[in-house]
């Protein structure tokens, strides 16, 4: 009986010791968690992620603009891979000390996007000289920031420009051809800011025309905003019409169609 009571007394001290150890250890864990969160410069890391993502999108647009200026459709120059490799090195240089590591994979083969079927070759695709023509680029990126243990941030960069000739009509009475077209970019969203200067080449029967006017308005017939290119002084029904358009990003698309008589 005596022994049992003494043990109970010791138990209070031992319990207090255990409680103290718990207080100290739990506090250490909580302190570690709280300080870990506060030490990290999250804003700066988010800024880097966002900045790299935006700049990579812009880079893809630059590459697509280049691709749509040079090279022939069956054998596009494989510059996208080279430029992206260079870009990876430049991103590391731009954020030294953060351990920024960017890797990529280029779109390849047939893919459906923007309501179309696109056939990518090394991340680039284009279909020209059709009533619906486009230029496109697509690549998927993986971003790691080693200094904060951020790994596996994936994003896809897309660039796309599509020109659709909805109708082309030759008006014999006024000796003119009107081409009704819509222009869309990735999203897809319509491009509504094109000016006459964005219509680089306008051809009728394969002859370059300089005497044309441009209008943009909402058409209830086509149920969308359209551009109307009116080529004047066309005395006979042309065999074809062709438009070369570049948008504000420098991307180019050549679209063609066969006009009908009114």
């Amino acid at each position: 009986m005596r022994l049992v009571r003494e043990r109970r007394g010791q138990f209070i001290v031992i319990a207090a010791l255990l409680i103290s150890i718990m207080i100290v250890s739990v506090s250490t864990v909580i302190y570690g968690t709280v300080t870990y969160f506060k030490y990290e410069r999250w804003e700066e890391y988010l800024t880097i992620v966002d900045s790299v993502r935006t700049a990579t999108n812009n880079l893809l647009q630059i590459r697509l603009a280049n691709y749509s200026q040079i090279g022939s459709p069956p054998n596009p120059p494989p510059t996208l891979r080279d430029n992206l490799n260079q870009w990876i090195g430049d991103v590391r240089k731009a954020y030294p000390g953060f351990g920024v590591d960017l890797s990529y994979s280029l779109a390849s083969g047939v893919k459906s996007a923007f309501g179309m079927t696109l056939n990518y070759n090394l991340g680039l695709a284009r279909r020209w000289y059709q009533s619906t023509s486009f230029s496109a680029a697509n690549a998927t990126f993986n971003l790691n920031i080693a200094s904060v243990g951020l790994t596996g941030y994936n994003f896809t960069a897309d660039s796309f420009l599509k020109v659709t000739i909805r109708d082309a009509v030759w008006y014999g009475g006024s000796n003119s051809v009107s081409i009704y077209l819509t222009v869309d970019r990735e999203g897809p969203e319509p491009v509504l800011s094109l000016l006459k200067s964005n219509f680089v080449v306008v051809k009728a029967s394969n002859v370059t025309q300089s005497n044309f006017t441009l209008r943009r308005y909402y058409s209830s017939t086509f149920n969308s905003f359209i551009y109307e290119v009116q080529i004047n002084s066309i005395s006979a029904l042309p065999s074809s019409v062709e438009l070369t358009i570049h948008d504000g990003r420098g991307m180019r698309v050549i679209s063609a169609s066969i006009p009908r008589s009114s």
Partner: protein
Amino acid sequence: MRKVKSKKSLKGQMRVIEAIMASLIVIAAVVFLYVFAAAPSSPPQEASELEKIGHNVLHDIDEQRLLARYIYNAEWTNLTAALLVSVPTNVYFNVSIYDINGRPISHPLMQYGNQQFFTTSKATASVSYIVPGYLLSYNPRILVLQLVRG
């Protein structure tokens, strides 16, 4: 009978001593934590806010496809004006532009507000923004925007 009573009172005193010891141990643990736990040093909220403002402003100008145009066409006045209308009026800024190897690109002073604040203020933010190129040319530039609240 007296012997039993004195034994009981001794045990009672021991209980009190044990309780005091237990309390002292717990109090010692709490005091230990209080004394040795250094307050976590967190970056000032102000600098973080300024970083956010700076990045958002540059991102917005870039989204409008103006940033690259200003930089590559050397439209420094336009760049300064765009920043001026985008940042809050009590935020002062200073812009520098570098090539990808960190060499400064020559440009006139692009700043707003009393530059003294950059040396006296405790909360100065710096935002680096990379621009890969413009239209057809790939030639990365790094824009460094420093911000301070006046």
